[in-house]
């Protein structure tokens, strides 16, 4: 009996040997199958090159075409599609290896493997009693894998499901659920991340910095592009990492007003997740000024002509008019700039600060403290006391002072 696993392995061999039209009818393939079952090595493998060179299961042979070839081979082998449930489960499991898990056409082809109209219930008793439960469960698992990978089914999926299982079975109900809930949640993310992120690290840094900047006026500056040195033996070593920074005009204004006696801190690296990739960014910020040093600057009435910024009215606000939460405002100090770089050591960050100094000359007079920690935070035991381990206060492994020029 041609079991599903054997068919997949046979297909591996055939892909290696250049595709033939009908796989299981030719005598060579029956020979191969017979050889599969015997213990002695086939003639072509004896004294051949290393197995690696002739590996039929190598990753380069696994692509959408070979997957479709496997499905077609199974479908053409038997009109009754014996063992199709196990075959579909195995194919679902192998989809990530072939790189087709987000491809709707492949899921439709996989659904096509089911024999049509056999599993459609023909009367109310069959409809009541979960007609062909194993096949229904298999189709539901297929739809569930589609749902896990975020693949939206289309009308071809629906037509296939109705042809295979009738219009009141579990697979069609699951399809209806997917079609109801997916559009509702597709645009629920107010900060969407595209499926395909840019591969160039500078472009990725540009995208992520714009995302976290919280200001549409912020400008991205590339202070240094990545440079690789080719050493004598021909290896490429990264001589200089890329440095991409971002700063908005408002942040520049705040930095201009910073008191030169108080230091600014370079902190990092902080993680930022974009779908499945994690990038790290560094922040230039200052500690908030103590309350006695905070000067209240009067509002300039000419700053905004649309509405008055300050009203001296003597109105009493009732309980029903309080529209802000009664919570003390956390003042964490201003953030002056952010940057992303592949190598977060002090030399690179110094280079960033020098680059920032060109547009913010006050940085030349302000002392800079570096608070860098290891990119992966160490395993912290949950029983530590909070005062020692709070994020901003932990003793940094490298702390240096860049004195005023």
């Amino acid at each position, binding site marked *: 009996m041609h079991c599903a696993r054997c068919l997949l392995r046979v297909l591996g061999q055939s892909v290696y040997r250049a595709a033939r039209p009908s796989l299981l009818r030719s005598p060579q393939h029956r020979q191969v199958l017979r050889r599969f079952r015997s213990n002695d090595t086939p003639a072509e493998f004896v004294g051949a090159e290393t197995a690696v060179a002739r590996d039929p299961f190598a990753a380069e042979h696994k692509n959408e075409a070979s997957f479709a070839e496997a499905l077609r081979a199974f479908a053409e082998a038997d009109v009754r599609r014996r063992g199709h449930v196990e075959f579909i489960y195995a194919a679902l499991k192998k989809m990530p290896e072939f790189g087709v898990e987000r491809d709707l056409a492949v899921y439709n082809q996989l659904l096509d493997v089911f024999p049509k109209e056999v599993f459609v219930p023909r009367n109310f008793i069959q409809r009541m009693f979960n007609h062909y439960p194993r096949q229904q469960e298999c189709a539901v698992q297929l739809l569930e894998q589609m749902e896990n990978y975020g693949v939206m089914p289309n009308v071809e999926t629906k037509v296939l499901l109705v042809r295979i299982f009738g219009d009141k079975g*579990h697979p069609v109900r699951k399809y209806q659920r997917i079609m109801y809930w997916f559009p509702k949640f597709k645009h*629920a*993310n107010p900060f969407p991340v595209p499926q395909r992120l840019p591969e160039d690290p500078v472009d990725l840094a540009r995208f992520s910095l714009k995302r976290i900047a919280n200001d549409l006026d912020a400008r991205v500056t590339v202070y240094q592009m990545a440079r690789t040195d080719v050493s004598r033996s021909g290896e490429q070593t990264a001589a200089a990492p890329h440095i991409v920074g971002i700063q908005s005009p408002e942040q520049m204004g705040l930095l201009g007003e910073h008191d030169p006696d108080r230091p600014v801190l370079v902190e990092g690296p902080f993680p930022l997740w974009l779908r499945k990739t994690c990038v790290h960014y560094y922040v230039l910020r200052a500690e908030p000024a103590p309350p006695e040093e905070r000067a209240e600057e009067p509002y300039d009435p000419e700053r905004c002509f649309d509405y008055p910024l300050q009203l001296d009215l003597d109105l009493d606000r009732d309980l029903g008019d309080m529209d802000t939460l009664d919570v003390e405002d956390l003042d964490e100090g201003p953030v002056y700039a952010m940057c992303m770089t592949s190598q977060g050591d002090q030399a690179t960050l110094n280079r960033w600060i020098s680059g920032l100094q060109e547009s913010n000359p006050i940085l030349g007079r302000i002392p800079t403290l570096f608070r860098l920690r290891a990119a992966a935070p160490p395993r912290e035991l949950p029983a530590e006391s909070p005062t020692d381990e709070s994020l901003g206060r932990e003793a940094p492994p490298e702390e240096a002072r860049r004195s005023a020029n």
Partner: protein
Amino acid sequence: MSIILGPPSMRLLRSLQHHQYLFCPVLSRSVTQGEYRRPGKPRDNKPPWQKINFSFSKGLDGIRKHLTLLKREFFERFVGPEGKPILEHMLEQNRVVWEFRGSESLKQWTVSSDREIGGQSEVYLKLGRNNTTCFLYGTLRSTPPRDGETRYSGYCSMRSKQPLAAFDRKKHHDWSSFNTLHLRVRGDGRPWMINIAAETYFSHQKDDIYNYFLYTRGGPYWQEVKIPFSKFFLTHRGRIQDDQHPLWLDKINTIGFTLGDKADGPFQLEIDYIGVSKDYAHTEEFAYELYKRNPNV
């Protein structure tokens, strides 16, 4: 995301499965099984009298604590409902329910991860910068435990404890005069899910939770999130249900945050406060349809 669609007859996420057909001659085991028992862990067959541990000082502390709570409960109704004057209770527009200032605030929260079902994710909770925020951090790993039943894994969550009155009676949050959840968070770009569990009557409704997404932007700036309660959809054991109804706000038990976005690696979430507010501009009662189950194909 951990929301999965499926008909109720399918048992798929192993951790939410429930042994119904045990052949157990001891009646107490099937009647009193409440906690999840990890597959492979031996059953705890100690008779109830062996589970008592008696401590005099803890007993006295307990009595003092409960009597204080009872006294406060008795006298607060002379001030007004829930200890607030009636005018304040009626006209209140914003209320801060959880504010993380000081380590006492962390005692109202529990964290859990898929370590309970045999996974390898870790989650820890501590106070953030200057002891003024709560910092939830850890590592997510989605390798499923090898017990032959679990297929998906990799989740971490933080849940508030059920508020308790004197002598450990259940108390509920009453948010019936509000319609929006207002949080201030600082995440790292990961999508979280907010779970609100309301008080239910029937035992089948025990795992009914109302969920909605919390998308974080990441970055050093705080993010204010306002989610109206009409957007929360009903799920049971992680599966979104066909019959939806709006969340009833008069008896809320717990609120929680879950991460299950299948991206292995470290995560962190900082929460400044969680409050509820009444947004007069929001008139929607429920965001999802309430009619027509099983439509024609």
